[in-house]
């Protein structure tokens, strides 16, 4: 049993799909169509009128979102799909930026930077220490050869 909102939306989408060419409907995966048929609300009476827009017919927002997903995934040209996906990426970026601003992770990064600097300094120090041992070893060898 799906939430009422989705039952209504599935019914509306299926009614709309009755007015879409068989060729275009066949692009939608069978399991998705089957799921919508099984879960569509039987109490909803909706008849789609092709002469009116979805908004004019008060098609639910969820149904309109489903149609937009069907368009993006199965009906759009590759160019249209690319544009939609790029827009989605931009929106996600804006959302990330907003969250970033909200939680102000810059301070965390500053801490991480200072920690990583510390790590780098430690590594450098270790390398220098190793070099000095090697230098001392070479110097000791030279002294031995020079003595002989």
């Amino acid at each position, binding site marked *: 049993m799906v939430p009422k909102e989705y039952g209504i939306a599935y019914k509306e989408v299926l009614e709309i799909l009755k007015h879409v060419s068989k060729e275009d409907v066949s692009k939608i995966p069978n399991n998705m169509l089957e799921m919508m048929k099984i879960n569509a609300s039987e109490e909803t009476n909706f008849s789609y009128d092709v002469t009116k827009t979805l908004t004019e017919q008060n098609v639910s927002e969820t149904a309109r979102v489903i149609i937009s997903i069907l368009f993006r995934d199965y009906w759009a040209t590759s160019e249209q799909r690319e544009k939609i996906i790029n*827009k989605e990426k931009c929106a996600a970026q804006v959302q990330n930026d907003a969250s970033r601003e909200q939680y102000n992770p810059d301070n965390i990064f500053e801490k991480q930077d200072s920690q990583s600097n510390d790590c780098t300094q430690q590594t450098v120090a270790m390398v220098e220490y190793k070099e000095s041992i090697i230098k001392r070893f070479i110097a000791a060898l030279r002294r031995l050869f020079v003595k002989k």
Partner: protein
Amino acid sequence: MDEIIDVQELGKQTLPEQNKVSQKQIVESTMKQHIAQLNLEQEAQR
């Protein structure tokens, strides 16, 4: 015969929803859950 609507026209009409990215993600993931649920039920019946 039912009148046919071009999917490009439907695409145009749902442009405002196309921009509602987070809402699309929610609906998409809910539909996936419903499909998975149906698969489980069908598996159990076999």
